[in-house]
């Protein structure tokens, strides 16, 4: 044991070392992660355990840090959208739209109504996909694999709709500055309507399986709870904050992309524990479905992208035929169009909470500085406090119910 200790100490003096003192205390050091199937991503937690009970935890993050903020300072606005895909990769369209809206705010571009409604549909679909993964995996971690498999088929159907709309499934790069790049094709609309028909019964079945399930309730109620006051102080947003009883939702507080046109409710919990987070996410899925139905019903006709703006790519047919179109195409793709000077903060309700973009433009072709307010990064710091005193298996459940996405955590 002594030899192992010296190896650790030489390598990194900050790592807790297995020394004799710990044996006197009767505590065990346990490395939860960085690569373990139950952590759903690369997170490491160095836990001090007293038997099965967690005494303290030190999270280590940054395993998939990809320097997005630095990269963004060297890319034209168009080329930053694919970076945002890789933040919360379970709900990429929300990140894409949030970024487009930030740029539109800077440029002063007004998106046509139809474009806004299409965006709302895509954002709500991706919110459903995001919550499906989180809740499905919560089931897996508590020992119920079936629900996960049920839901994953539906997530697949959502991704097929994305594929129809933008050509890709996971990292979507959907939409353009000023609106959407493609309208709903008849096939996409058929797939969407089929999803809206087929999904609710499956979701109801999933809820029947879990919501009043004695075993699941025993595993999740009073596990990893956080009070509303603490949650606010820790900067929680999204479903995790709402589960603690605070009805803060960016879609309602600062409506964007015509969210004020739709009628929906903000589900809130009371205890802020794992069970409440699960229930809040399930309820949000129903509300998202409501929004999609309304958007499809009220969908106005008209253009899907703002016409009078420098960032609109000319149609591909014209690029081959007309000189102006070719020039504009070249200038936009090569990022030759300068943006106005300005400083913008724009936030959208992401899958996990308030996803903010703080953009400073100095009038060049790239942002001078771009900072992502990543909800995961901000609320994950409360994790040690939430799990201290609980069992190891409860800590796993708490982690998956927080829906920490490694890509968003590490940016």
């Amino acid at each position, binding site marked *: 044991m002594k030899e192992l200790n010296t190896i650790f100490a030489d390598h990194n003096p*900050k790592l807790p070392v297995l020394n004799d003192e710990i044996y006197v205390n009767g505590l065990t050091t346990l490395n939860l992660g960085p690569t373990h199937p139950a952590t759903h991503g690369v997170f490491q937690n160095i836990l001090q355990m007293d038997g099965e009970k967690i005494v303290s935890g030190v999270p280590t993050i*940054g395993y998939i*840090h990809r320097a997005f*903020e630095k990269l963004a300072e060297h890319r034209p606005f168009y080329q930053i959208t694919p970076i945002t895909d890789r933040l919360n990769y379970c709900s990429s369209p929300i990140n894409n739209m949030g970024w487009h809206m930030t740029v539109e705010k800077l440029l002063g571009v007004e998106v046509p109504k139809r474009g806004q409604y299409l965006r709302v549909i895509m954002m709500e679909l991706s919110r459903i996909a995001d919550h499906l993964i989180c809740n499905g995996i919560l089931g897996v971690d508590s020992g119920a694999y079936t629900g996960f498999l049920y839901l994953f088929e539906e997530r697949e159907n959502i991704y097929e709709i994305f594929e129809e709309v933008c050509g890709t499934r996971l990292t979507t790069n959907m939409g353009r500055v000023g609106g959407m790049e493609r309208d709903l094709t008849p096939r996409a609309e058929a797939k969407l309507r089929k999803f809206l028909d087929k999904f609710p019964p499956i979701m109801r079945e999933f809820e029947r399986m879990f919501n009043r399930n004695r075993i699941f309730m025993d595993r999740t109620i009073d596990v990893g709870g956080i009070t509303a006051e603490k949650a606010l*102080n820790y900067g929680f947003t999204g479903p995790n904050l709402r589960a603690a009883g605070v009805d803060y939702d960016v879609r309602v507080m600062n409506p964007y992309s015509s969210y004020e046109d739709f009628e929906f409710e903000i589900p809130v919990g009371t205890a802020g524990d794992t069970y409440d987070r699960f229930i809040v996410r399930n309820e949000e899925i129903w509300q998202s479905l409501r929004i999609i139905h309304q958007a499809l019903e009220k969908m106005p006709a008209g253009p899907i992208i703002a016409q009078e703006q420098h960032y609109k790519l000319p149609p591909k047919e014209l690029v081959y035929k007309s000189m102006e179109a070719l020039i504009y195409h070249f200038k936009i793709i090569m990022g030759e169009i300068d943006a106005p000077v300005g400083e913008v903060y724009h936030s959208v309700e992401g899958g996990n909470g308030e996803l903010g973009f*703080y953009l400073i433009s100095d009038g060049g072709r790239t942002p001078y*500085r771009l900072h992502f307010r990543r909800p995961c990064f*901000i609320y994950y710091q409360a994790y040690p406090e939430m799990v201290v005193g609980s069992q190891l298996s409860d800590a796993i459940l708490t982690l998956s119910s927080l829906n920490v996405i490694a890509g968003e955590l590490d940016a």
Partner: protein
Amino acid sequence: MIANQELLDYLIKKHGASILDSAEPFGLLTVHTGRENVLDILSDLYAHDSYRFRFLTDLCAVHYPQNKGAELVIVYHLHSLETNTRLRIKAFLDINDPVIPTASELFATANWMERETYDFFGVIFSGHPNLVRILNEDEMDYFPMRKEYTLEDPNRRDKVDKMFGR
């Protein structure tokens, strides 16, 4: 919503000389202050009866190398959830003396945000409980988001692109 003008009047009345400048880019009130006053303003707005700026949305830094004597800016985005008002506070720092008091006692969420800012810009938050690198590796001996560090090694010759050079 609290009107920007009302909030600005209150801040000037209460903190007078410590409000150096103000602006309203895209409707978001931005006030500039010095590092010795920023914590006073934050805690005053936190404790205020009706404003209640109790939610720290975001904290980050920006580097302006041309701005001699005030190269680093620490940007706080505050949100008053009861009144749904946002406020931006900026504090300017000299890059040779990048020290500012920590806000982590007021907002628990500032803990990691400040660690991130230290990690990328080398801003020292005095009084911070655990100011170590968070996303980069511990052995790193520079602060990569400062403007003097280019994205790629400038000595590389294999990626020179004269036509569209980034």
